[in-house]
């Protein structure tokens, strides 16, 4: 995103991506300077990939001064985990993986408990436990305000009480780029450096910056369970179709979550420009493919109040 060394004009017009990048880097540096023990939530998805690149940029030529935390539900795609391990090793960052082992031993899965309770145990509880166990006082998340309506109001520095909960009616006013990171014991701040990025900005930036992403985003023939309009990936033993429901389909994932709850879409987009072309042709927002957001009206807001990212 930087201008080349021979940029001639004094006040060259900056593009919106340059402005977004500069804002995000500023946020990373504020957190690193003001908090004792920050962590970056790393979900392995495209937004996490962009966040990771921005963190590299913020502290270059130094290392990223905080660890990455992946909350592994146990139901992530195999390709996601492979990507996570190889990419973080390549970058030399400190990766912490946390799972709610107890719930997994008890056989928690979305087929048995439903998506709400499953998410509650394997994502929200696991996340809050990990943050508490490590004593993290700030956690970066890759959420964007354009994703979902309740996110549109969340601050860049989003205060959480000692139970990790968000109170949408009692948020700190956030003016200019002056972020209030003051917290009491046990309290924490969730930080969203990508707040002002849109899905298109993310893809465009990945394209321009050549940022590695999980291959699941690119179209290819995959084994899918076809049910109505939905394509459900066949990765877990409890995801079983009726006769004829399992098929090889040329498809890709628009957002990455747990394999039983993340629908794929039929697609031929096997390059970034094709993904972008497909994106702008869609009139369907990306979270529409996730089962969890449809649980009930305003479900994302409820999850966030409870501590979900």
């Amino acid at each position: 995103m930087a201008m080349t060394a021979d940029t001639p004009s004094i006040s060259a017009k900056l593009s919106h991506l340059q402005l977004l990048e500069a804002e995000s880097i500023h946020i990373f540096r504020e957190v690193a300077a003001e908090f004792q023990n920050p962590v970056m939530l790393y979900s392995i998805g495209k937004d996490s990939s962009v966040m990771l690149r921005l963190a590299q940029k913020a502290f270059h030529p130094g290392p990223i001064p905080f660890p990455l935390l992946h909350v592994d539900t146990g139901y992530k795609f195999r390709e996601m985990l492979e990507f996570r391990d190889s990419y973080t090793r390549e970058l030399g960052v400190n990766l912490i993986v946390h799972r709610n082992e107890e719930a997994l031993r008890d056989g928690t899965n979305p087929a048995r408990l439903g998506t709400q309770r499953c998410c509650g145990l394997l994502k929200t509880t696991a996340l809050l436990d990990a943050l508490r166990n490590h004593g993290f006082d700030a956690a970066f998340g890759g959420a964007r305000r354009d994703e979902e309506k309740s996110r549109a109001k969340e601050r860049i520095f989003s205060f959480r009480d000692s139970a990790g909960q968000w109170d949408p009616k009692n948020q700190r006013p956030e003016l200019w780029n002056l972020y209030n990171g003051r917290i009491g014991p046990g309290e924490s701040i969730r930080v969203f450096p990508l707040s002002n990025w849109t899905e298109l900005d993310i893809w465009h930036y990945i394209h321009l910056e050549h940022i590695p992403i999980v291959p699941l985003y690119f179209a290819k023939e995959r084994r899918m369970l076809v049910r109505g309009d939905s394509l459900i990936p066949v990765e877990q033993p409890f995801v079983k179709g009726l006769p004829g429901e399992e098929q090889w389909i040329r498809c890709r994932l628009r957002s990455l979550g747990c394999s039983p709850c993340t629908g794929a879409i039929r697609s031929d987009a096997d390059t970034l420009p094709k993904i972008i072309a497909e994106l702008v042709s869609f009139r369907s927002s990306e979270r529409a493919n996730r089962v969890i957001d449809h649980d009930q009206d305003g479900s994302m807001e409820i999850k966030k109040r409870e501590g979900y990212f």
Partner: protein
Amino acid sequence: MPHLTEAPNARIDEVSSRPGDAPVPIPIEEFLAQEQSKDLLRFSTAGSVDDGKSTLIGRLLYDSQNVYEDHVRAVTRTQGTHALPTIDFAQLTDGLRAEREQGITIDVAYRYFSTSRRKFIIADTPGHEQYTRNMATGASTADLAIILLDARKGILTQSRRHAYIASLLGIPKLVAAVNKMDLVGYSQDVFEQHQRDLKALVARMGNIEIECIPVSALEGDNVVTRGENTPWYSGPSLLEYLETVPVAERHSRLSFRLPVQRVIRPHQHFRGFAGQIAAGTIYRGDTVVALPSGRKSRVQSISTFDGDLAQAQAPLSIVVTLEDELDISRGDVIASEEAPPQAAKNFEASLVWLHPQAMHIGKTYLLKHTTQTVKARVSSIRHRIDIETLAEQPADTLQMNAIGVVVVEANRALIVDSYNQNRSTGSFILIDPTSNATVGAGMIRQVIADGDGAYAEKDLLQASALLMVGNRPELAADLEERLLALRVAVVRTRVQNPDTWRALLHAGVVAIVESNESSELSIASLHGGQSELISEALAQGIAADHTASAHAVVEALIKKQIIAARIGDETK
């Protein structure tokens, strides 16, 4: 969002600002190049339940093809069995559950959309009086503000307030959407009357421009496309205006300033100062000064992940290294040696109060300015702004949503510019040290030189009154402090001689008369040369809570215009 033609994947439609136009497919490479050259316009909106703000934004997003189909489906309702399904545009933008339940927007929400020319960020805020703080929050990062008017009603308090807050927060351009033109028969006369009123209004606010556009958000006239219902209007549609209005180059007006966020030192051969450029442009080899130390050096490198740069401009985030080993840490500022910012412990600022707990003169707050946080107090209030009339009133506190001009004293010097020169180095927030809440938002007006503080003799305000407080030393002390904070000339006396009192009244001071009697509180002032007892009723109200009482007395003096608004204040 542009939509895709049936044909090949690698071609997409050009974004059309006219929904009816046939889409023109362009190659993806061209689209990406167009995408990369887009700039960014941030604007704020404010409005209340019934002026159609949410409908306007919903319409702007929908007609410019920036709404996803599933969102539209979710807000399309069929009322009655034979009615056609209609889109509730307001529901496209209203977010939280509480809002949906109450049918109002309660906070600041950010929306995003783009056209082929620009990416836009909308800071969407509610218009109620109690949400001044949210309007200020939304306006703090905006380049432009949309003022919404109901064509049937003209300028209401809410539009006036929003225009004022926009001007206070340094937004140079306003666009007035005169909405609901369909309900006044698209009358040119009505529109032109509102336009005259609006121009007269902003003329009082100083350096700010306004563009007026007649629209109907419900019918879509002049929101994205120009409507056929207003043939007399030849100006741009709202979106056309937003797409073409020049974005102010506010970052570059001043010479270079880099508030240091962090020192980056991966090894002993590299010591870089990381920050986001607050103003101006820096070139490799430039001589810079580190503040507050005042030591100079030259820029050795401008370093980024993407390689070293020969120059960088605001608001990029960079790392600079210097030729000399200067002791620089977070909170310091690296600036151009020509016209650097000033170091100041005392300054005058406009302050928007954000918190239910009122501002307390003399209380220690934490003040965050650029990258440093210091302890600070508000030592006095010059005046409070009546946001309805824009009149300046004396005040001894600021309640939530109040705006005043105050004097701030920081424990340590800050490296500042005035807000109208630079938003980054001219703004600050106040944080309550106990609750950690963000309680105030300030904009520096001018630096006050040391020794030229709030209590300078020449600044004292003349006002005449006798406050008979009896034997209440704490109340007397509290009153004295509050009145001094208002820069009123105050005398405390135990002399019980009416001639002396009269002389004090004529001398133009507020005399706090104490005695050993536990008498009732009374206030006397001069009226037509005669002293007049003005407030016996107040005496009944003197309870054990002396703080509240002193406040009540001061408020009564203001209300009775014994302490009058300052005229010809040198700070205007």
